[in-house]
């Protein structure tokens, strides 16, 4: 089975507008190359990291 080619976001008017708006499309592009399960696990890890950071700030 041939693996799916990595998804690359083009340089279009829509991506330019999003970048100008402040969206970090490198993260979006990384996500597009993950499965739905991997995307949700990444989100969970990100939330856990934010919680640890908040708890650390409270503890100082």
């Amino acid at each position: 089975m041939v693996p799916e080619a990595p998804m690359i976001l083009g340089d279009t008017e829509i991506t330019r507008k999003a970048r100008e708006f402040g969206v970090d499309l490198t993260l979006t592009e990384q996500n597009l190359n993950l499965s739905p399960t991997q995307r949700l696990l990444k989100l969970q890890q990100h939330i856990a990291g934010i919680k640890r950071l908040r708890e650390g700030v409270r503890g100082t």
Partner: protein
Amino acid sequence: MGPDFGTLISALSKHGVECVIIGGVAMAVRGSSYTTEDFDIAYAHDEANIEKLVAALKPYHPRLRVQGEPSGVAFKFDARAIKNGGNFTLLTDAGNVDLLAHVDGFRDYADIKSCAGYVDAFGSEIAVLSIDGLIRAKRAAARPKDLLVLPELEVLKEAQERR
């Protein structure tokens, strides 16, 4: 404790709950980098489905999510309570869960379902709102936080069309 999306998806799928994942988790499934803790689902508000929904979530001890009450407020989570209500913001052992019988921008559950597609996540097939559906919902809600995510959703829509 952080959210456990896999547990929630498996429970809903195992019980055959007629529902669609919407909101930030649907955005993440579709590739967005938006961060949310809330697992939002739109559900069919008929009696049989409400029974399934209650059976799926009851083991995770749903409480009402109330500001200033970090452990939530206990309430009788049963089919009657869900039938008499519509939209609920809950705290469960598997994280925040928002149950939505009504969603801005959509006529009814059938309308939401028509804008969803099945996705394999954590080994379960679950309906997730499409990128077009997410754009429609965010435009209809039109709160500042909804409008902020539109540029990335437009990028995802374009990427999907190019695939």
